[in-house]
């Protein structure tokens, strides 16, 4: 655990470097609060940006061939990967709390009662997307390097969304009743009381798969 703590402190020391990004988040938040942009958009914006933060820390680790140096410390490669996931999940949690506070402020300024239930649900959904982005970004950044990884990640998500869109369009054209059934099923699993266990299962599966894939990638890497 000492090794992981040391790596977390290392990433914490990078806060000075990413303070510009944090200031941009604060600035954008202020604009969105005062011009009445929907809290859903703001929540999504913040959670996705935060999900990319860990990729930035990997990019800083790679500077000066620093990843090779980190691997000579009394830290295993598995611990390095675990620290990146811990760092990412902690950041997403802080982002979650931040978006909650912003939602409350937004409703107060709009003189409406805060709909906490809906705000929490929105934040949870974007947190799940954040966890998926985080999981993919760690594995891809470790495999291809942070710079190339970012491009690969964007391309990957574009391909996933394209396939999803094409799949739905295909169903609509050939089996319209199945498309309706699929969309209905998709809506029901993200509805009401089912949403939280479904999100928990999705996060757990994606995190575990990505963790083991990332460990394998780093354990096979030469410096």
């Amino acid at each position, binding site marked *: 655990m*000492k090794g992981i703590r040391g790596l977390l*402190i290392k990433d914490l020391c990078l806060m*000075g470097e990413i303070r510009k990004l944090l200031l941009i988040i604060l600035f954008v938040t202020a604009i969105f609060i005062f011009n009445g942009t929907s809290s859903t958009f703001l929540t999504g914006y913040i959670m996705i940006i935060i999900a990319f933060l860990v990729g930035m820390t990997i990019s800083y680790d790679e500077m000066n*061939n*620093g990843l090779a*140096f980190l691997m*000579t*410390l*009394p*830290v295993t490669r598995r611990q390095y990967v675990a620290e990146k996931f811990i760092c990412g999940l902690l950041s997403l949690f802080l982002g979650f709390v931040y978006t909650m506070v912003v939602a409350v402020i937004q409703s107060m300024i709009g003189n409406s009662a805060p709909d906490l239930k809906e705000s929490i649900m929105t934040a949870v959904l974007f947190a799940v997307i954040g966890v998926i982005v985080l999981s993919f970004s760690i594995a891809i950044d470790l495999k291809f390097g942070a710079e190339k990884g970012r491009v690969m990640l964007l391309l990957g998500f574009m391909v996933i969304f394209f396939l999803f869109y094409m799949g739905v369009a295909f169903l609509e054209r050939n089996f319209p009743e199945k498309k309706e059934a699929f969309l209905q099923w998709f809506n029901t699993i993200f509805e009401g009381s089912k949403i939280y266990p479904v999100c928990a299962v999705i996060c757990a599966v994606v995190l575990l798969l990505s963790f083991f894939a990332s460990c394998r990638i780093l354990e096979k890497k030469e410096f």
Partner: protein
Amino acid sequence: MIKVNQIEKNYGKFHLNCTMEVPDGCVTGLIGENGAGKSTVFKAIENLIFLDGGSIEVFGKPHTELNAKDREQIAIVLSDATFSNVYTIKDVARIMGSVYPDFDKKKFMGLVERFRLPKNQKVKEFSTGMKAKLKLFLALCHKARLLILDEPTAGMDVVARDEVLTLLREYMEEDEHRSILISSHISGDLEGFCDEIYMIHEGKIILHEDTDQLLGTYGVLKMTEEQYRKIDHSHLLRRRKEIYGYSCLTDEIHYYAENYPGITVEKGSIDEIIMLMVKGEAV
């Protein structure tokens, strides 16, 4: 402390095949020209690359099975890698203190002040020499039993190199069981510091000798072609054709000085020995 047993690593046309040992309480130097395989040997010991053959033991264990406690006992300076250069010395001290239980922050900051490194400046603003000092100070401050130093004096001026070598000597004197494996392209650094020296060329160890022996009995003989034909060749290691005849490397300089007064006998520096080992042909 370290046993490197017939390790093999292939990179395209480059083939490393190396056996060496770093004994307890000794300073062992690894020398060779650029691309000879020094850094590959270091990276193999540090488990940063995977072997195609052979084995490495550190502290009597396979190098791939060292636990966190074992790794805390090893301090490593890589020639081309360190912390990201966005950190300051204060950040780096904080990180090292949280990774190594025995990190001596007081000693580290003392060295930083003694060598006038700026504490609040980012490492990217440091000169090459300052970065090299920082890497070494980090290695010296967590009470490691084994130092593995790849080109630790690279980029330092002559005064700084001398000061750093003094630090390393002091480090060895603190505990007789400590060991150092060091490489440097400045052979003068190693001459006065190492107990024994390995010379590597094209991935193979071509010479292993005690430094005292190397500097005391190895030498260069300069002679005409006729003298070369007449002398005893049994203690000649390498020869090289020169305008005047031949220059030859020997490991028995006194034998030739006593028995062949007509030839020029020079005590060899490590640079000259490297040159003849690498450029000369076998006798």
